[in-house]
């Protein structure tokens, strides 16, 4: 299992990593031995793709599917309600949070 100062890998099977702290847009982070420049700010506890994910592919955290991608996700992208959805019931948010920006 790889964990860095900034990202935690919870399980070898996961395709997302968890931010251990807030990460700034433009920071360069090592993910799967690739240096990736963050496209957005990432808040503590949020998920970051550890590989490219295609639409409808399951998002895996703690070796468990937690939903599916709704659009192509690149390595280092934040994975959240703007690019994934529940396979059970829709997620309710107050604003229409179509984008991760604005948090």
């Amino acid at each position: 299992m790889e964990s860095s100062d900034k990202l935690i890998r919870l399980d070898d099977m996961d395709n997302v990593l968890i931010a251990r702290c807030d990460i700034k847009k433009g920071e360069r982070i090592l993910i799967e031995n690739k240096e990736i420049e963050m496209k957005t700010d990432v808040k503590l506890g949020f998920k970051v793709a550890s590989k490219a994910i295609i639409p409808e592919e399951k998002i895996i955290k703690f070796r468990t599917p937690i939903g599916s991608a709704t659009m192509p996700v690149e390595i280092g992208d934040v994975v959240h309600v703007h690019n994934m959805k529940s396979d059970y019931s829709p997620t309710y948010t107050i604003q229409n949070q179509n984008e991760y920006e604005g948090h």
Partner: protein
Amino acid sequence: MKDIEWKGYARKDGSKGIRNVLLVVYLVECAHHVSSEIASGFNKNEVQVIGFGGCYPNSHADKVMRRLCTHPNVGGALLVSLGCESFNRFKLAKTIEETGRPVSTLVIQEEGGTSKAIARGTEWVRSALHQLQNTPSVKMGVKDLVIGTICGGSDATSGISGNPAVGLTFDRLVEEKAITIFEETGEMIGFEDHIASRAKTKALGNELRKSIQKAARYYTIMGHASFAPGNADGGLSTIEEKSLGAYSKGGKSEIAGLLKPGDIPTQPGLYLLDVVPDGEPRFGFPNINDNAEISELMACGSHIILFVTGRGSVVGSPIAPVIKICSNPDTYERMEEDMDINAGKVISGELNLKESSNEIISAILSTAAGNKTASEALGHQEFVLLYKSFQPAGPSCLP
């Protein structure tokens, strides 16, 4: 933990409490103000208000109220009735009396209105408190405790630090022969088979599976799951992801039984509380907020509630002290006065899960011995009890 003992309160019905609370209980919302006014003249930790707002009868509310008024942490109760509501005050008073606790019923319409009722109620509470001072003490240990857990104001850190730390704590409490209760079957949707496989018996496994399927159906009809907008702001994307975190707070023990609100387990072990009503949805959401869940955990006998929060809940409860475990190190820093434990240290790397669980166990023992939790010290006593309908738990649900 085995050798640690403290002095608790011995009840005549044989139960052992860690608090000696006198309840003022409104039996309909119309009696709420009078109840609050009566309690306001006394120490908030000694005299606490709970109640049921509805005017129409409900057997779930009846059962929960009976359990709460005879809870091990409760020494006695003043029932406050307007006079025309349909809550069966006679039956409740009789139940309390039979456990040897002091009880009195105040009917506002018979007393002649607000002021007279407040005066009479205040007088009774004063004399009952005097009586409670003579409650005999009894030695208690971890094996005498019932510990419930919920998570509220969850974010993505809850499932990584706070909930697994509570899960580990639960495993250790079960080893010490305590009773532990986790709940919210709506947050186990997707884990039916896994949970069923952890049941003590195959028949119980089937009941556990059915309870989660029931929750899935109920939430589908309600239109959205147990997921608040704050959960998404905190990095949780879906109900599955929230469930994954919530599930971990039950630990890894074999599941000994499935409870409905008000069922009190007698054998040590880990229990799942089914909070979702049976039958067709009739009264709305299974639990409208965290305090509704706390009421039901207490109705199953919980002495203490372990409450994991990431976003930062501030709530407490009457009757059972709430230990607030903050899973997010940033939230802890911002809201330290409301928190008892900083499980965020697991994320920042200061502690591992075992060490965090040690801190939770210390807090449980200290709270059981009488020390106030953060929410007790701040006076939080949020309470919610609503209409629900349940069928009794099946024969394979309890050991």
